[in-house]
């Protein structure tokens, strides 16, 4: 211890004081640090920057506005004001006198107002006293009060009257003053109007000043009062977060940094200051998803409440390049503790799904729709439950109930073993020869399974005898017919690769090697009447003549796959079969018990039993109609909430090169599902059974978007897109249209129309686009048309097929189209044509001057028709649609050859002499005329 201690002291006091001073200083510094640490937030800097950007924008518009002002005129106005002021100055005395008068009147008015207020109170109080007295039957007192009340009322009325008199006086004096100043006032007003915009902009600019007031309002300690820089948030009542079993409205604070997201004009700013790129659909005030209602994370995902920094809200990079950029710029890290990070930019459309449930295609969601189409193509929903939009669908694969009448068993086995070796476009996935089951001991078992499956399927197969005979025809002609009649809307065809690749049809199989696959008689029967072989097929009849059918069959049969033909499948390995059966049976039995059980069966029973079990194992029945599997559920896991499945529940196996992210897993899984088993010691029955579709990365990514959107978020009823009765019917109708792949050929209300890509040169040669089709055609006609297709556009080579629609399906389609176009069943029943005097003559004149029959020649001339038969209008089209069509055909079908007779707006009459040049009257008359044509024919 120090020597100079005082008695009773253990320490040297000055030294202690020094320590105290140092410690106090440290505490002071840390205290300041605390406040600074609390005060300095990244979003504040961003808001200040956004203020500067806003200022820059205002300055730019200010410049533009200033330029707009006519400087010459302004100078003129200024001089005229100066002149006017001189004149006014000469009247100074009169003006002063009037001003004094005005002041005196105003004073009187004020005094009178006070007086009136007092007397108003007196009247009310006296009135109360009188009524009380009267109510208590104190008649004498009441009488007295009544008298007083009358006096007060009179006073009050007098006062009111006085005030009115003063007001009139004031008006007169003001008019006088204005008159004395007239040379200045009007010019001043003119000038103010001219500079109004600039003045307003200048006021706006002032709000972006970094002034002392701004500094004080945003100062530490004071900024809780009324800061200008603050966290901005949106409370979304229609989307909730799950907090301890309680649903709480979601809060999004994204706009704290994305300051101009809802304001047009900032499209070119850097992030986060950019305007939303689809303001007309999202975020914008007028859009269907306004910011204040929909918020941000309801579509984009991520942590909307967080404002800490860029990383904490779980922004997700869209590419490796962006990830690298973010790591450099923001120290971006993969979000670990966030159950649902933001959707990557290219996956944003996944956000549509949770509110827009039930429908298959959502307008505007291109990637999502393509993903769902790919799901449809591969039939994922066969094995997996995937939510409302996939419910009640047909089985994705062809029926195998009569397969023995179509292909032979040897072909069947080789096909099941490796579909791609026969058809490289096969939609049937590969179950075998995958990276997880290619070990010799597994191959041996797999082959036994395939043999057994074939035995089972052919055992159950019903006999089939084709109802047509094949007669060799002209293959070249057949190929031409295929390319013309519309086969390509559903099928890709070998030899027509160029056209097929454009259409990318997927509803039917890619047609190749048919000569090595089916019997000629079967093929002709199938082409002529598909439902003869499979009652519930979606393949329609093209109403082919015998010659056409035989020509097509000749072409298709000429396509052969010699290598595949040469394949023979190994004989059933009975030892492998028995091993597998013992394995199955030992699930609930001992090994010896299972052996005994299997030994009791005869050879045939064993094979069929393994066949059935194998079909059950691989889920063949999910895609194909097979006897003995009624009521079997799909073998795949339910994907309805896949987008919310915790990342820890995804098995990444030994695939360390795949980032531990939900979307990355799904993409990898779709491309090669067997990868998760690689390097892992698994017994045969535990191998991953998801087959390989050999899909491209692009397809896998699109499907991933569709799957990621299927989340477990609870969306309150108010938040879910509700369909009214009409929309429901439309969706139902479109479901049928989707089932029969109508959109493979027809573009319906802007969606798909795949085959139209082959008619890019002349869209009028392709199948008609259906825009508001329910408005175009009459419900009755449409219904009959489905049952009995008749040519409408004889110049088309492509044919509307005859579909094997059920009554319910026809009804759903008709009701769907009708309601999609907001039409009732008989909104406009067949109109009785009644003419006004002279109207019909006018119509005939128009008919002749437009020369309608030059294109609509059917029934009029012998010319080749280039437009539909007008004699059918009465029974086919709705009159109001005919009017709309005549008015502006391009607005309905851009690119149609129907001329816009009435100008681009439908207002210009061609012949001003008819109906006083009234275009609407002319259109009406023409409409009546074409309807009459049909009536007369009857």
């Amino acid at each position: 211890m120090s020597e100079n201690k005082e008695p009773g002291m253990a320490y040297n006091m000055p030294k202690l004081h020094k320590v105290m001073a140092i410690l106090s200083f440290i505490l002071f510094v840390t205290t300041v640090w605390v406040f600074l640490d609390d005060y300095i937030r990244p979003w504040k800097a961003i808001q200040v920057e956004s203020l500067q950007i806003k200022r820059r924008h205002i300055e730019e518009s200010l410049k533009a506005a200033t330029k707009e002002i006519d400087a010459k005129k302004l100078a003129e106005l200024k001089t005229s004001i100066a002149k006017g002021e001189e004149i006014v100055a000469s009247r100074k005395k009169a003006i002063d006198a009037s001003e004094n008068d005005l002041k005196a009147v105003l004073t009187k008015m004020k005094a009178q107002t006070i007086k009136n207020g007092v007397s108003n109170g007196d009247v009310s109080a006296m009135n109360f006293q009188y009524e009380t007295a009267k109510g208590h039957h104190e008649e004498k007192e009441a009488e007295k009060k009544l008298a007083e009340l009358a006096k007060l009322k009179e006073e009050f009325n007098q006062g009111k009257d006085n005030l009115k008199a003063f007001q009139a006086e004031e008006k007169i004096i003001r008019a006088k003053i204005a008159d004395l100043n007239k040379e200045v006032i009007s010019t001043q007003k003119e000038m103010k109007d001219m500079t109004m915009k600039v003045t307003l902009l200048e006021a706006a600019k002032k709000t972006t000043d970094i002034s002392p007031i701004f500094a004080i309002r945003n100062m530490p300690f004071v900024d809780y009062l009324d800061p200008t820089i603050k966290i901005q948030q949106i409370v979304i009542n229609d989307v909730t977060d799950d907090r301890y079993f309680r649903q709480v409205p979601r809060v999004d604070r994204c706009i704290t940094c994305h300051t101009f997201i809802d304001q047009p004009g900032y499209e070119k700013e850097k992030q986060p200051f950019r305007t939303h790129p689809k303001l007309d659909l999202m975020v914008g005030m007028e859009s269907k998803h306004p910011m204040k209602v929909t918020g941000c994370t309801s579509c984009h995902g991520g942590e909307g409440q967080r404002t800490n920094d860029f990383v904490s809200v779980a922004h997700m990079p869209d590419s490796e390049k962006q990830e690298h950029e973010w790591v450099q710029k923001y120290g971006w890290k993969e979000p670990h503790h966030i159950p649902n990070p933001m959707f990557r930019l290219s996956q944003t459309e996944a956000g549509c799904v949770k509110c827009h449930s039930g429908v298959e295609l959502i307008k505007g969601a291109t990637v999502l729709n393509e993903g769902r189409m790919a799901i449809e193509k591969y039939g994922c929903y066969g094995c997996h439950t995937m939510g409302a939009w996939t419910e009640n669908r047909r089985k994705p694969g062809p029926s195998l109930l009569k397969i023995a009448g179509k292909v032979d068993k040897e072909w069947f086995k080789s096909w099941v073993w490796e579909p791609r070796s026969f058809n490289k476009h096969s939609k049937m996935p590969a179950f075998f020869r995958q990276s997880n089951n290619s070990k010799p001991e597994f191959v041996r078992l797999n082959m036994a399974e395939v043999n057994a499956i074939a035995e089972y399927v052919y055992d159950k197969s019903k006999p089939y005898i084709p109802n047509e005979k094949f007669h060799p025809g002209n293959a070249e002609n057949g190929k031409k017919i295929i390319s013309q009649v519309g086969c390509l809307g559903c099928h890709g065809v070998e030899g027509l690769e160029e056209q097929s690749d454009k259409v990318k049809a997927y509803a039917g199989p890619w047609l190749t090697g048919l000569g090595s696959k089916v019997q000629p008689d079967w093929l002709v029967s199938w082409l002529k009447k598909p439902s003869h072989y499979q009652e519930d097929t979606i393949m329609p009849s093209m109403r082919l003549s015998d010659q056409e059918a035989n020509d097509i069959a000749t072409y298709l049969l000429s396509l052969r796959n010699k290598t595949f033909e040469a394949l023979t499948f190994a004989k059933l390995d009975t030892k492998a079969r028995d091993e597998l059966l013992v394995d199955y049976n030992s699930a609930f039995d001992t090994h010896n018990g299972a052996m005994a059980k299997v030994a009791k069966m005869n050879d045939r029973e064993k094979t069929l039993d393994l066949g059935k079990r194998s079909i059950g194992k691989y889920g063949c029945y999910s895609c194909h109609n097979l006897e003995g599997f009624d009521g079997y559920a799909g073998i795949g896991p339910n994907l309805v909430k896949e987008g919310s499945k915790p990342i820890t529940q995804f098995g990444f196996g030994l695939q360390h090169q795949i980032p531990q992210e939900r979307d990355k897993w799904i993409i990898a899984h779709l491309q090669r599902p067997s990868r998760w088993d690689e390097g892992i010691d698994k017994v045969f029955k535990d191998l991953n059974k998801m087959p390989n579709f050999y899909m491209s990365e692009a397809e896998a990514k699109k499907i991933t978007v569709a799957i990621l959107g299927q989340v477990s978020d609870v969306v309150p009823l108010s938040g879910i897109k509700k369909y009214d009765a009409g929309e429901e019917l439309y969706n139902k109708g479109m479901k049928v249209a989707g089932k029969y792949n109508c959109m493979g050929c027809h573009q319906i209300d802007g969606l798909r129309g795949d085959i139209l890509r082959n008619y890019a040169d002349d869209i009028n040669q392709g199948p008609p686009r259906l825009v508001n089709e329910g408005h175009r055609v009459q419900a009755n006609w449409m219904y009959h048309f489905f049952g009995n297709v008749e040519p409408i556009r004889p110049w088309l080579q492509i044919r509307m097929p005859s579909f094997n629609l059920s009554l319910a399906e026809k009804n759903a389609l008709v009701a769907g189209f009708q309601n999609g176009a907001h039409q009732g069943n008989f909104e406009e029943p067949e109109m009785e044509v009644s003419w006004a005097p002279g109207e019909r003559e006018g119509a005939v004149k128009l008919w002749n001057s437009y020369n309608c029959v030059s294109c609509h020649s059917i029934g009029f001339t012998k010319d080749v028709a280039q437009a539909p038969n007008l004699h059918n209008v009465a029974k086919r089209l709705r009159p109001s649609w005919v009017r709309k069509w005549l008015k502006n055909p391009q607005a309905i079908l851009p690119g149609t050859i129907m001329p816009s007779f009435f100008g681009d707006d439908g207002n210009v009459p061609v012949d001003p002499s008819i109906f006083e040049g009234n275009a609407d009257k002319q259109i009406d008359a023409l409409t009546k005329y074409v309807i009459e044509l049909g009536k007369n024919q009857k």
Partner: protein
Amino acid sequence: MLRELINKLSDPIISFPLATFAFYLMLKYYKTFGSKKFAYWTVGLLIPVTVWFLSDPNFFSIISTPDNIPIIILLVCVGFFTWFAISKAAANDIRIEAGLGPIEATPEEREKVWSWPNLVYTELFAIIACTAFLVVWAIIFKAPLEESANPTWAPNPAKAPWYFLGLQEMLVYFDPWMAGVVLPGLIVAGLIAIPYIDTNPKGNGYFTFKERKMAITAFMYGWLVLWIYLIIVGVFLRGPNWTFYGPFEYWDFHKVVASFNVNLSEIIWIKTLGVGLPKNLVLREIFGIVLSLAYIIIIPPWMAKATRVGRDFFQNVGAIRYYIFMFLVLMTMSLPIKMILRWLFSLKYIVALPEWELNL
């Protein structure tokens, strides 16, 4: 190689006996342990060892988690203060043996000083320094922001606050009501009871080990081995699924450890005697019940009669203090006993009566 060895040694099966043994060595050779030379050597050795440990990415990632920083501070503090106390005690004990009395009893150390400012002022320093330190710590290592709490989706591993990790570790060996209620309750009760049990007048106001061997050994074992050591295990060596991970091991979520535990009744009735479990619950668990009761009821009187230590202690403190103290010691020792039984015999419960919610 060396890292793998350390990984293996850290497994509680080995490291717990090692820790106990180290504790025994520390007290046995406390004079050597308390020497400055020993301290210098230890620090000199520990620095390169620590650097080498830190050079391992897995170890570094565990140790540098913001949550784990207090444990590092704890390690340093506990190490230092343990050494400091023992070093003082050793110095005093040498003096006492030489007949000089403890340093604290020398005349110059007995001088009285004013509590203000000598005590109060310096306490204020400590308060300020601690506040500043905590503030800076809070600023630099922000509380981590994780997903919003979801009762249906617990984080894995779900860890208690670091100071409770010793208790959480006990859950591995005991039924929740034992590990979570009875044993912590006994710790509190035992701490309250200490002044009433301990009648040894020596060691008041000065450091000594020799004069308070029993009290210090019992307390320090509970503190260092059963509390601090278990916290270290809980923080650094327990990963996802509460599985053991060596200090250099990657916390692989999918790590699987083979363990299949059986009850004492199953070991005896089925494995040893080869008969089925009796239907009667008490009969089924009779061996466990007898053993447990014997442990609590027979050991204390037997020790008081048969062993010299027990006899002396019994005579010094009297029957009531003796039995309470022995009860507490036995309960304390139940943890290491249970651990060893688990590791050696995969023993689940000595008495397994889930029907009565009673598992020991």
